[in-house]
């Protein structure tokens, strides 16, 4: 049975409530109103697992090339907001740098070096914020390496990434946000322009090199736009996966005992962490035609917020979905999205988080435990993760 659009109950949820903890609202929507119109977000939210998969796998109905997209405005037109052949051309140009074999053979040793260098810098302190001092800079350093950027400070890349994200969400049209965004954009462009001549003459395994030397090479402006989306969308995901997975491991002693006995289980910790708290909780799509979804008829041109964060807690797919449980029966989470826009960084993320960051952190910081004086905070629904991870260890 279908229903025409009507103002549903629960739609008065505020963006602040979603930021603090979106999961109670998501649960309510999945049960009562799975594709609600949310005035505060200006979107219909897609909250059930099967509807999210349907959207992901029908790009001809659910376009990524959203009209008036702020991502396009702040970064330039890039693969995240393209469909069909235009998307495939950009993506195929970048893909050789991110396939599993090059990740294993070329990038994983770099990830290990970066993790060890960072830990060397703070291990003797005996305490610190592992979100600020480890997860963030490690993600920045790994991302710079994969892109092919050189001499970019960890903090600069993190600042640029946050500015681009803030710009992509600047529906309030805040001029300060646009100014930060413009500065970030200039910084990224300069960093890219500094490496293009070298990589043009000296191909390596990096994304920018792959784009320059693809069968259909990308032009410098196309490289700038696509690298910006990698910087906006490739830094906080591994960062937040490290943060949430480390926090979950520190608060679940049985998980910690298991991974310390068998480090191959870090892969399960990683997959369960991104299922439990998806780093990208929501991403936009726009309908190209009238379509029924989750019992609601959506008009052509409708703006959607596809909620991976809700689909990953869908009780029809995951039993006791709010629990962190690495032993749950295997079922496909949607933290990496699906279809043509399936996360291009999936294998790089699995390697840098599950193979390197988490095992290295827990192996090297002996007696690692949370700092009871300074509670861990979480925030976000479009992007979600821990905001700090104060810890102490035996120095």
């Amino acid at each position, binding site marked *: 049975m279908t229903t025409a659009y009507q103002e549903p109950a629960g739609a008065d949820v505020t963006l602040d409530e979603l930021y603090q903890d979106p999961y109670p609202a998501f649960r309510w929507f999945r049960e009562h109103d799975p594709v609600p119109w949310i005035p505060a977000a200006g979107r219909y939210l897609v909250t059930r697992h099967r509807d999210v998969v349907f959207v*992901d*796998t029908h790009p001809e109905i659910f376009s990524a090339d959203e009209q008036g997209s702020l991502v396009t405005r702040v970064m330039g037109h890039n693969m995240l907001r393209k469909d069909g052949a235009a998307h495939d051309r950009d993506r195929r140009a970048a893909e050789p740098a991110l396939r*599993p*074999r090059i990740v294993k053979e070329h990038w994983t040793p770099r990830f290990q070096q970066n993790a060890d260098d960072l830990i060397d810098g703070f291990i003797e302190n005996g305490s610190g914020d592992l979100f600020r001092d480890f997860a963030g800079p490690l993600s920045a350093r790994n991302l710079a390496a994969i892109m092919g950027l050189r001499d970019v400070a960890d903090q600069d890349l993190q600042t640029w990434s946050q500015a681009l994200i803030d710009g992509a969400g600047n529906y309030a049209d805040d001029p300060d946000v646009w100014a930060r965004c413009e500065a970030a954009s200039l910084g990224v462009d300069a960093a890219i322009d500094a490496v293009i001549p070298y990589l043009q003459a000296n191909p390596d395994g990096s994304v920018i090199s792959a784009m320059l030397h693809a069968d259909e090479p990308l032009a410098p402006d196309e490289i700038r736009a696509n690298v910006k989306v990698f910087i906006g969308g490739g830094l906080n995901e591994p960062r937040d996966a490290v943060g949430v997975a480390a926090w979950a491991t520190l608060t679940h002693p049985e998980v910690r005992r298991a991974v310390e006995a068998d480090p191959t289980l870090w892969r399960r910790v990683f997959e369960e962490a991104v299922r439990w708290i998806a780093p990208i909780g929501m991403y936009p799509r726009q309908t190209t035609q009238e379509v029924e979804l989750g019992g609601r008829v959506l008009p052509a041109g409708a703006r959607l917020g596809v909620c991976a964060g809700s689909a990953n807690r869908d009780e029809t797919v995951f039993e006791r979905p709010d629990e962190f449980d690495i032993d749950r029966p*295997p079922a496909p989470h949607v933290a990496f999205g699906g279809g*043509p826009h*399936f996360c291009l960084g999936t294998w790089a993320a699995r390697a840098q988080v599950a193979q390197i960051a988490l095992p290295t952190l827990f192996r090297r910081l002996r007696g690692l435990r949370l700092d009871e004086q300074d509670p861990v905070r979480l925030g976000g629904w479009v992007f979600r993760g821990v905001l700090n991870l104060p810890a102490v260890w035996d120095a």
Partner: protein
Amino acid sequence: MPVITYVQADGSTSVVDAPAGTTVMKAAIANDVTGIVAECGGQAMCATCHVYVSTPDSSSLGEISEDENEMLDCTAAPRTEQSRLSCQLVVQERYDGLTVRVPEYQV
């Protein structure tokens, strides 16, 4: 039209008409065959459409490309000599009667 049989780990089967030009993965998705996840939609990037090809003459299915080969090293269920990614198997008339086994899990 070629007919493809999917055999689940529990022994149950689905028999599907697969037009030439589609892939063994897409034919499964279009017919709600369980156990073929295909997260990436057919780009040889996710390794979640893994199947075991039980016909002896698997060479008739076409060579395993370099991309498919490296991705088969990433499957959740064990890779065997019968392993293929169903998204890389483009159905042709000679596929008629093909039987593939679906692994117990894809993730």
